[in-house]
C-alpha cells in the first residue's frame, strides 16, 4: 500500500471550462477518494424572484446556463403556465420542441468536442465545434441570438419562424447529419479513442438507480429514463423513444450522446413536417396564485422547475433542480478506484454544468 497524497483538481484547470474543485486522494496512481467542493459560481439568482416580475424572470432564468438556456426558459415558463392554467398554442409547442432539440444538438456537439480535447484529439475537437457553428447559425437566423435567445415567454413565444426558414433549417440539418456521420466513425471506431473510453468508469444499472443518476449518464447504464416521455412539448406526438446503452462506461456515454444528436435531427425534421399554422402566443392576464412543478429533459438530464405565487406580480418561491447536481454522486462513485490520468475523462463524461448546479 502506497502513501496517500491529496492532489487538488481545479478550480482553474485546462480541461474544465468551469470552476469546480476536487480533492483527489491518491495512492500511487490510483484515486481512492474524490471530495468535490462547489460554490465558485453561486450567484443566488433564485432569490431574484422577489425583485423581478414573473414575466421578467424568464430573462434571468435563461441565464442560469448559457448552454441549455432555451430549456431553462421553457421549463420556467411551463411551470408558471401550469400554475396559471394557461394553454399554449400548438404551433408554439412545436417551435419550442424544435428549439429545445437544437439546443440539445449544440450542447452535445460542444460536449463531444470537449471530450475529444480531453483525450488530446485536438482536430476532432475542432471538427465538432465546426459542425456546431451550423446549429448556432440556425439559432441566430431564427431567434437573433447565438447562445442566449430570450425567445420563450410566459404564454408562448416572441418570434415565429416562417415556412421558408423551416425548410432551410431542414436542409442544413441534413448536412450536419452527413458530416457528423464521419465523426461518429472516428469516435466509435478509432482505436486510440476506444482505448481511452472503453471500460473506463463503469457505472452499473443498480448503482445508477441507487445514486439517482439522470440523463445520458443513467441511459448509458441501461436505465431507460427520459423526461421527454413524460409528455412535455410535442415529444409523444413525434414518436419519441429514449436512447439506451447498457455498458455504463465512458464509451457508452459518448455513444448515447452521439445517437441523441441524430435522434434530435430526426425529431426536428418530423416536427417541421407536422407543425400546424396558428398563433404563437396567448395573452397572459393576472398573477400566479398557487404552485406547480414541471419536469424537463435538458441535454444533461432531468431538471425540475418549481414555481409558487401568492397572487402578486412577484413569485414567492422559485426553485430549479438541475441534472448535474443529481449526477455528482455518480461521478464521485466512478472516480473511486480510477487511474489519475482518467480523472479528466470521468469528470467530463457526466457533462458537468457547474453554473446550472450552483445557479
Amino acid at each position, binding site marked *: 500500500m502506497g502513501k496517500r497524497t491529496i492532489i487538488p483538481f481545479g478550480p482553474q484547470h485546462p480541461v474544465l471550462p468551469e*470552476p469546480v474543485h476536487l480533492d483527489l486522494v491518491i495512492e500511487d496512481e490510483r484515486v481512492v477518494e474524490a471530495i468535490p467542493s462547489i460554490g465558485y459560481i453561486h450567484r443566488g439568482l433564485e432569490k431574484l424572484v422577489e425583485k423581478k416580475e414573473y414575466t421578467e424572470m424568464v430573462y434571468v432564468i435563461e441565464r442560469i446556463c448559457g448552454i441549455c438556456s432555451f430549456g431553462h426558459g421553457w421549463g420556467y415558463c411551463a411551470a408558471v403556465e401550469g400554475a396559471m392554467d394557461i394553454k399554449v398554442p400548438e404551433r408554439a409547442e412545436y417551435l419550442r420542441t424544435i428549439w429545445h432539440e437544437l439546443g440539445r444538438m449544440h450542447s452535445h456537439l460542444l460536449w463531444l468536442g470537449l471530450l475529444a480535447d480531453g483525450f488530446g484529439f485536438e482536430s476532432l475537437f475542432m471538427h465538432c465545434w465546426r459542425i456546431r457553428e451550423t446549429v448556432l447559425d440556425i439559432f441566430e437566423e431564427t431567434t437573433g441570438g447565438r447562445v442566449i435567445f430570450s425567445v420563450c415567454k410566459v404564454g408562448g413565444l416572441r418570434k415565429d419562424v416562417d415556412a421558408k426558414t423551416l425548410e432551410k433549417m431542414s436542409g442544413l440539418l441534413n448536412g450536419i447529419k452527413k458530416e457528423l456521420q464521419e465523426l461518429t466513425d472516428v469516435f466509435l471506431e478509432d482505436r486510440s479513442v476506444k482505448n481511452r473510453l472503453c471500460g473506463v468508469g463503469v457505472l452499473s444499472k443498480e448503482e445508477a438507480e441507487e445514486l439517482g443518476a439522470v440523463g445520458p449518464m443513467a441511459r448509458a447504464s441501461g436505465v431507460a429514463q427520459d423526461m421527454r416521455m413524460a409528455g412535455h412539448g410535442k415529444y409523444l406526438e413525434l414518436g419519441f423513444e429514449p436512447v439506451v446503452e447498457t455498458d455504463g462506461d465512458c464509451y457508452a456515454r459518448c455513444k448515447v450522446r452521439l445517437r441523441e444528436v441524430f435522434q434530435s435531427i430526426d425529431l426536428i425534421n418530423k416536427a417541421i413536417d407536422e407543425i400546424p399554422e396558428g398563433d404563437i402566443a396567448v395573452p397572459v392576464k393576472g398573477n400566479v396564485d398557487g404552485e406547480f412543478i414541471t419536469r424537463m429533459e435538458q441535454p444533461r438530464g432531468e431538471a425540475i422547475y418549481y414555481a409558487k405565487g401568492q397572487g402578486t406580480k412577484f413569485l414567492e418561491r422559485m426553485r430549479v433542480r438541475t441534472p448535474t447536481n443529481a449526477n455528482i454522486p455518480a461521478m464521485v462513485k466512478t472516480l473511486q478506484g480510477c487511474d489519475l490520468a482518467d480523472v479528466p475523462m470521468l469528470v467530463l463524461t457526466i457533462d458537468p454544468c457547474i453554473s446550472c448546479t450552483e445557479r
Partner: protein
Amino acid sequence: MSYVTKSPWIIHYDGSSCNGCDIEVLACLTPMYDVERFGIINTGNPKHADVFLVTGSVNEQNKGVVQQIYEQMPEPKVVVAIGICACSGGVFRDCYNVMGGIDTVIPVDCYVPGCAARPEAIIDAVVKGLGVLAEKRAAMEAKEDKAELAAETEGKQDE
C-alpha cells in the same frame, strides 16, 4: 530581447458566468473564427499567458482565485472582462452573492459588454488589448533602460 507582438497566449477563467460567454471564448478558437491561425493559444498555465480573459462576476469564493491567477501572470499583462457580468455584474448585480465586476478585485484594461458577448467583440477586445500590452511593454523597457543608464553612470563615477 524581442517579443512576439501579434500572438499573445491567453488564459481564460470563468468567474461566475452562465457559460454563455465561456463557450463564445472557445468559439473564437475554433474553425469558424479560428484565432489560432495567428498563433493565439488558450493555455491553462497563468505563467505562460499574456492576456487574461475573465467572464462572469466576482464573489467571495472566487475572488482569491481570480487574484491568484492575475498575480501569477508575468508582466506585462492585460485583463479583458468579457460579458456584461464581468463588466458590472449585469443582470445578476442584485443577487446576494455577487460583488460586482472583475474590476473590483483586479485592474481591467478592456471591457466587452454584451450578453452573451459575441466572438467578434471578444476578438476585437483582444486586439485592443494588444495595443495596451505594447504600451505596457514600452513603459517597462523605458524603465529598465533608465535603471541601466543609472547603473552605468554610477559605475563611471566609481572609476
